[in-house]
């Protein structure tokens, strides 16, 4: 048989073949920081349960430069993750009213609005205002 189909090997170079793949990997990578932050919250809860001294030392540790650095990076990744996620929601949740579909901005906008609303609600419960 003269046929001999050739299979091109897959390497990780695909990530750099186009900016969209880099952006995707960054988005996925962001979960490490989001996960890390969640862990930090769990640790914080634990310290809280161990009494005022443990809690104070936890708050102190949070003010270290390394911690500030981590928080800035985690916030950036979180925002990136949330924004890319919200902007994708219209694709997953199309809403047809009559013949037309609601514009993407409405669906994504609703998510942003809910986010803002929930955040304000939480801050209020925490006694910020």
């Amino acid at each position, binding site marked *: 048989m003269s046929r001999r*189909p050739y*299979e*091109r090997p897959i390497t990780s170079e695909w990530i750099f073949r186009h900016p969209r793949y880099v952006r*995707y990997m960054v988005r996925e990578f962001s979960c490490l920081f989001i996960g890390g932050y969640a862990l930090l919250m769990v640790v914080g809860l634990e310290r809280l349960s161990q009494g005022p001294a443990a809690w104070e030392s936890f708050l102190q540790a949070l003010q270290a430069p390394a911690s500030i650095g981590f928080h800035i990076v985690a916030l950036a990744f979180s925002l990136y993750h949330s924004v890319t996620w919200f902007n994708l929601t219209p*694709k997953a949740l199309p809403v047809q009213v009559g013949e037309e579909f609601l514009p993407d901005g409405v669906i994504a906008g609703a998510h942003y609005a809910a986010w803002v609303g929930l955040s304000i609600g939480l801050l209020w419960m925490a006694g910020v205002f």
Partner: protein
Amino acid sequence: MTELSILRYNPETDDQPRFQSYEVPCREDWVVLDALNYIKENLDPTLSYRWSCHMAVCGSCGMMINQEPKLACKAFLRDYQGLIRVEPLRHFPIERDLVTVIDDFMAKLSRVRPYLIPKDVKALEAGEYRQTPAELKRFKQYSMCINCMLCYAACPEYGLIPKYIGPAAIALAHRWNQDSRDAGREERQEALAAKEGAWECSFVGACSEVCPEHVDPAGAIQQVKIRSTVDWYQEHLMPWLKK
């Protein structure tokens, strides 16, 4: 003049694919396909590639042009600077030159049962099923797929996990699921909700970006995920509800 560097491969003479360069005239209205035809007619008749309609509706001429999956009949030479690299569509084995083996794709298309499984069977004499323009719009977009496989070439999941059923197949299944005349969602569920079905997708979204017909397979896949999740919960928690 423009230079095209084309990945050649003839299993009878080559161990491996290799690039070959050609100089072609650079006409304002030419697409890469016109350049390939020029090469075949004037420079090298041994070059093999698929094409037919030259109007982006038959889906034959998908290839990697400067590493991006594109239809050769819609890739205008004027949009490229310098050397243009032309390779067969990624993630498919190369049969010969720019011709790939698409057996896997054809099998997957079949697997999702992409045909009408009607709700109520109607006699032909009774005329057409009624379908409002709004109902038509619900699935119309997903019916526009020309089976060009650019989405499979763009999808890193398919590249890494060849068992993944892939964007076009899922979008086609979704097209039928969304058709108001159809009642076959349950039958398609097995292929769609499987591990190699919609759940293999991690929403890279490259498929929708490269799709020349704006089918938005990524959107279809996420909708399939949501729908199959709701179906699963209904089936297991509220089995008394009709699907």
